[in-house]
Structure formats: C-alpha cells, structure tokens
C-alpha cells in the first residue's frame, strides 16, 4: 500500500516536472499582462486573452520568418526523401559490392558533429556566394537529415516482403512498376513518419541559421528570430511566450500524428516473444 502511494506520488512528480515548463509557456501566453506582472503568480487560467498572440503575429517580419522556415525545412525534407529513397532501395533490395561499406558510411554520417562544421561551412558559403541565402540552409539541413532518412527507409523497405514485388513482376509488371504500384503504397506511412522527423530537425535548427543568415534580417528563420526575442519584445514575456507557443505548435502537431506510430513501434518491438 505504502509502495503504491509512493509510486503514484513519484509518477505525478515526474509528470509535473516534465510538463510544467511547457504548461507555463502556454499559460503565460494566454494570461493578461497584469496577471503576468502580479507579485503572486496564478497557476490556473483565470481569464484568457489573445492579445499576446496578436503582438507576436504583428511583429516585424513574422510571416516571412514562417515562410523561410517552412521553405527551408520543406525543401530539405523533399530532397532528402528523393535521394534517400534511391539509396535505401539499393541497400535493402539489391546485392552489390561495397554495400556494407556504404551502410557503414551512412551510420557514421549520421553521427556527424555538425557543431564542428560551422566554421568551414561559413567559409564555403562565403566563397560560393551562398551566404545569406536560404539555399545553403536547405542544403545543410538536407545533409543533416539524409543519413537518418536512409536508415529508416531501409528499415521500412526491408519489412515489406520481396515476394509481393516478385508476384507483381510475375503478373507482368516491370521492376519500376512493381515498386510504384506495390511497394510504394505500403511504404507511404514510413515515408510520412520519416519526413516528419526530418522536418522537425530542420524546423528546430538554430546554429547554422544563426551563422549563415546575417546581412538581411528578413531572411532569418523562426528559431533565430525567437532567440533574439529581447530585441523584438523587450520584457514583454506574454508576447515572447506566445511566439514560442506558435513556434512549437507544428512540432507538437507532428508528434500527435506520429505518437500512435512511435508507441506501437516501441511496444511492437518490445512485446514480441
């Protein structure tokens, strides 16, 4: 009995500690300014205002930062999917010399310490005239997500029985048709999950966006803008938290979409005899 009570207490403690910062962010975003500035904070929403969201959205460049972030993250993910699909197919379905070496290279590339490449990529971007363009960011994010995309797609591909493809080929499909009509539909959920994770990586990236976009402030992405909230909002914490909430929203939506998949993935991998 005592064990049960202490377990429940511990569980609630873990829950509160994990959720509180996000809860506090959202709560502050909806609180009227006088409540934010009161000496005793309120922990439950008493009255709700959308004023801070108005301030955040009206901030200079807000929509172009959104557009930039979407363009860069979306472009990187589409590129990575195209390139990775080809490589994953070669690895999961074909036999060739050097396959093991290639897989090892992908694993190593996945562990790249990108933080160590800030300086050379800055120099290269400057030399090639790509500094201050969204192109260089798209390319960097593409390369950041590519290894992960290959590894995951290869896993999804390997889970689809080759027999299905062969059956289609026996029925008169070419190899390409068999892939397009049989494998691709089965692969679609995997493609979705992989691309959304890649999207999150690119959406959240700060270090390169901070270094590679310097001249024209309108070309910045959301994370860099948000990190400089002091310049934009000063001490207006309501607006700052509203901006953070808006920034987190797409990521949260993606997690909700994927959550079923992730959980079943963990459970499925764990329960099997």
């Amino acid at each position, binding site marked *: 009995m005592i064990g049960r009570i202490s377990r429940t207490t511990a569980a609630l403690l873990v829950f509160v500690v994990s959720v509180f910062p996000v809860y506090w962010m959202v709560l502050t975003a909806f609180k009227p300014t006088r409540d934010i500035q009161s000496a005793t904070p309120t922990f439950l929403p008493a009255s709700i205002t959308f004023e801070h969201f108005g301030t955040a959205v009206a901030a200079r460049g807000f929509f172009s930062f959104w557009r930039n972030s979407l363009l860069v993250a979306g472009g990187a993910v589409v590129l990575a999917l195209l390139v990775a699909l080809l490589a994953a197919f*070669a690895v999961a379905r074909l036999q060739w010399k050097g396959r093991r070496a290639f897989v090892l290279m992908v694993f190593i*590339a996945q562990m790249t310490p990108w933080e160590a*490449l800030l300086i050379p990529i800055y120099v290269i971007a400057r030399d090639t005239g790509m500094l201050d363009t969204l192109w260089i960011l798209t390319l960097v994010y593409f390369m950041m997500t590519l290894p992960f995309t290959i590894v995951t797609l290869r896993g999804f591909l*390997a889970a689809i029985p080759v027999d299905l493809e062969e059956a289609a080929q026996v029925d008169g499909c070419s190899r390409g048709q068999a892939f397009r009509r049989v494998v691709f539909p089965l692969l679609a959920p995997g493609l979705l999950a992989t691309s959304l994770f890649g999207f999150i990586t690119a959406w959240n990236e700060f270090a390169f966006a901070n270094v590679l976009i310097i001249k024209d402030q309108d070309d910045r992405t959301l994370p860099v803008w948000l990190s400089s909230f002091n310049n934009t909002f000063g001490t207006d914490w309501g607006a700052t938290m509203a901006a953070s909430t808006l920034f987190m929203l797409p990521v949260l939506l993606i*997690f909700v979409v994927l959550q079923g998949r992730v959980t079943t993935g963990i459970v499925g991998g764990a329960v099997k005899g």
Partner: protein
Amino acid sequence: MTLLAERPVQATAPAEPRRRKRVVLPYLLIAPTLLATAYLLLYPLARNVIISLQEFGLPQLVRGDAKFVGLANYARVLADPEFWSVVRRTLWFTAINVVLIMVLSTLVALLLVRLGKWLRLLVMGGLVLTWATPIIAATTVFQWLFQSRLGVVNWALVAMGFEEYRDYTWFADGEATFGILVTLIVWQSIPFAALSLYAAMITVPQELYESARIDGAGAWRVFSTITFPMLRAMFGLIACLEVIWVVKAFVQIWVISQGGPGQATTTLPVYAFQVAQSLQRYDLGAAVSMLMVVLLVLALLAYFRQLYRQEREA
C-alpha cells in the same frame, strides 16, 4: 527513435542472375547520396582541417590567400591555459549531465515498469511532450522561469522561505547559469533515455524477477543482479549517445549565456565558435573544433563497440 531504427536489417534481396544492368543500377541509385556526402560533409570537414593548418583571419577570408603554417595553430591552442580550462569545464559539464541523465532516466524507467496502465500513459505522455519541445522554445521558457523579477522559480523559492532569492539574478552568476544549463539539458534528455530504457526493461523475462523475489531479493538487488547485467549493452549504448550529445551541446549554451558570464559556461563547441566569430580567428577556431572532433571520435568508437555488442547479444 533513432536507436530503434538503427538495428541493422538483413537484406532480403534474392540471388539474381547477374546481368550487366543489375551491376550498374545500385551504383546509380547511391550516386546522389555519395555526391551529397562528398560535397556537404567530407568537403567541409577537409576544409576545416585545411583552415586549421593555415593562417586564416578576416583578411584571408576576404582576399582568400591563406598561407599554410603547419601545426602552429594547434601548438598555440594547446599552449593556451584558457583552452585547458575549457576542456576541463567540458569534461565536468559532460560528467555531471550524463550521470544525472542516466541515474534519473533509470529511476523513471523502473517507475514506468511498476505503474498501472493509466498512470504509465500519463507519465509517458508528459515525457513525449518534453521530447517534442524544440530546443529554442525550451531555452526561451527557461529564461522566463528563472527571470529575476517575475520568474516563477524565484517566487517559489521566496515562498518556501529562501528570502535571498528575492529578485535573484540567476544569469549574472556563473555557477547559477551553469546549474540552469545542466537542468535544461537533463530535462530535455531524460525522455529519450528513460523511454528507451523502459522499452528494453520490459523485454526482460518476468520469471527472472519472480524467482528473485521468491528468493527474497530486495529492489536494489534485483536491479543490480538481473536488470542491469541483462541490459548492460543498452545502458552503455545510451550513455555513449548522451556523452556525444552533451559534449556538442551548443545551442542551449549559446542562446542562454553565450558562454558567460565571464567564461563560466564556455564549453568546447562554444569556445570554438567564440574564437572564430568574435575574434575572427577562423584558423584557431577550426583547430579547437578539430580537437573536439577527436574527443567525439573517442566517444563514438565506444558507441560503435556497444552497438556491435548489442547486436551480438540480441
């Protein structure tokens, strides 16, 4: 997620008659990946090595006529006491973070195993929410939590009777900022580690626990004689990953303190960036980041060894 996806998958390609087309096709398919890796990863890495061997400051950046100076940059960095204090701080920072992450994650995972269904889903939901929080959103919120005037942490501390925390400026004090960064990184890292450990723990056959309990083993004994030995490889794997992530943690530190106040939170990646960006000594910055890569490669080798061991045991 990454960890789960990384299990090598046996290729199921059938043995096919060797026609010429089949031999060329795979190389055509991987060509884009190879090109991208060469240009966007190997080339920058090589360029970093080259810059670290040159005299490369602002004039060379503009004119592009850098001279090779051999290992002079490395000699200069390695002779600088500041560099060594940064290395010591990085190792400290990593040790504190990783120990906290591993201990707390293990406790959370053990708790999850023992919880009923609803409470477990609640806690897992909370962990996933933390996991989903973008680093930049988290850094912004933590700055708000620890604000001196209206921050909720100071309010709570004062309410608990610690008067000295009234209007306490956390970010003006080196150790306090260091502590906040540790809290932030640990808070962000626990979900991945705890959920991975939990997923591994429920694969341990229940019979083992039952027979241990019948033999009268306490909770600590069960953990140290059954759970930990059975999952040793998994613990090693996660610890290596956490070491790598903490050593290269840059964004949290840069956004919250830029390595300050003073140098109190300057770790290797922050130091490399400071040297390159603020002093415009790209050569020295490149040398520092190469030394960091060496450190990371060591951790990475340990990680690959664990991965290999995990595969053999699985």
